[in-house]
C-alpha cells in the first residue's frame, strides 16, 4: 500500500502527532484509519447510512478529494492528505 503523509487538525489529533505517515490506497483507507484513531467520534465521521459526514474534507496535495473521486480517490506514495473539518457554530 502507498505510504502517504497525513496531516490532522488538532481537533482530531488530540494530543497525538498532527503529521504522521500511514499506508492508504484510497481516501476510504484514510477514513478507516481515522475511525480506528478516534473510535469515540466514529459516529460523527461516518453517518448512520454509511456515508462520510459532509463536514470532513480530505485535501490531497491541496485539492479537495470531493472534486476528484471522493472516498474512492486513489493515493500514491508521497501524497499529502490534509483532513480539514468544517466547523459549525459562531
Amino acid at each position, binding site marked *: 500500500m502507498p505510504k502517504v503523509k497525513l496531516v490532522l487538525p488538532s481537533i482530531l489529533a488530540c494530543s497525538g502527532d498532527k503529521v504522521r505517515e500511514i499506508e492508504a490506497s484510497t481516501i476510504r483507507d484514510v477514513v478507516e484509519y481515522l475511525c480506528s484513531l478516534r473510535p469515540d467520534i466514529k459516529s460523527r465521521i461516518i453517518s448512520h447510512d454509511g456515508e462520510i*459526514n459532509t463536514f470532513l474534507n480530505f485535501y490531497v496535495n*491541496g485539492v479537495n478529494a470531493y472534486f476528484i473521486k471522493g472516498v474512492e480517490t486513489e493515493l500514491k506514495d508521497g501524497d499529502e492528505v490534509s483532513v480539514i473539518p468544517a*466547523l459549525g457554530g459562531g
Partner: protein
Amino acid sequence: MVEEFTDKEFEMYSRQIVLSAIGYQGQEKLKKGRVAVVGVGGLGSPVATLLTAMGVGYIRIIDRDIVEVSNLHRQHLYTFKDVGYPKVEVAAKRLRELNPYIEVEPFPIFIDDSTVLEAVRDVDVVVDGLDNFKARRAVNKACYKLSIPYIYASAIETYGSTTTIIPGVGPCLECIFPNVSDEGLPTCSTVGVHPSVLQIISGIEVYEVVNILTGKSPRLLGKLLIYDLRELTSSLVDVTKSKYCSVCGGLGVEKEEVRYPVVEEVCARGGLATFMVNPGRIIRLNLEELLSRLNSPKYKLITRSQLGMTLQIDSKIKFSLLHSGIAVIEGVESGEEALRIYRDIMENVIKIETEI
C-alpha cells in the same frame, strides 16, 4: 460623498489615523465603507462592535434571533434588560450610542436563499456572524452572484476558522467545504464555545474587512486559518478554487466530468424511500408553462404553490418540483429510478438539459 471628519470623530479615530496600517486616507475609506454583518451572535456582536467603533460608515446588521440569557456571556452587545427583544433592535441602539457618526441599519430577517440577495445588496463586504452552514451557503452563493467579498468564519468549543472569499479571484465557500450539511455538526448549544476564541476570530474578520475597505490585499485570500485556543496555535491551509464547484466552477464545460444532477436518499416516509435530486444550479422554472405541457394522463397534479408543485405519476410515485429545479421523489425503488424520472420530466417535458 464624504464630508470632513468632525473634531470629535478625528479625536475618536486618532489612534487609527496615526497607525500606519490605516492612516488618514484609510480612515476616510472606512467612513465611505458599507458592510453587512450577517448574524449578530457570538462572532457578529464583536464584529459589529469593532466596525462601529472603528468608524465604518454604514453597517447593516442582520439577525432573526431574540436575546436570551445564555447569549450574554459572549454577546456583549446585550444585557439582562434586553432579554426577549430582537437582537438587531437592541444592537442597533447600542451601536448608535457607541458611534453616532455612522449609519446602522437593522434587518430582522431569516437568511435563506429567498432573502439573501436583498440582505447583502449594495454593500462592499459581507462578514460572517452566522451559526449554521445552510445560511452560510446561501450567503456564499449570493456574494458570488453579486461579486461581493465575503469573510467566512465559524467557531466552536476552543476552535475557530476563517477565510476571505473574493468572488472570481479565489475559492468560494463551496470550493472549500463542498456540500456541507449541518446535520451531524456539533453546535454551540451542545458543545459550547469559549468566548475568547470568538474574540480572536472576530478580530481577524474585522482585520480582513479593513484590509478590503482600505484597498489593501486581504491576508486570507486562498488560505483557511484554523485557530486552536487550547494550544495557542493556528494553521494556514491553502485552499483552491475548483472548476467543478457548484457555485463558482463555471459548470457545463467538461461533459465527461459530470457530477450533477445528484440524487440522494433523504428519508423514508411510511416505508417508502424518498430521494432528492439536486440539479446543481438554480434553474428557475416557469411552473405555469410547465403545467401547460404536462397534458399526458400519466401525470396528475396534486398540489401547486408559489414555489413548487407535486405530481402523481403512474399512481404510485409522488414527484415534487421546486421552481429552483430541485425535485423530491417518493415511492421509487432506487436513486437510479428517481434520477430516470427526473431526467424524463426535465428533458422531455420541460426541455431543460440536466447534465451540467
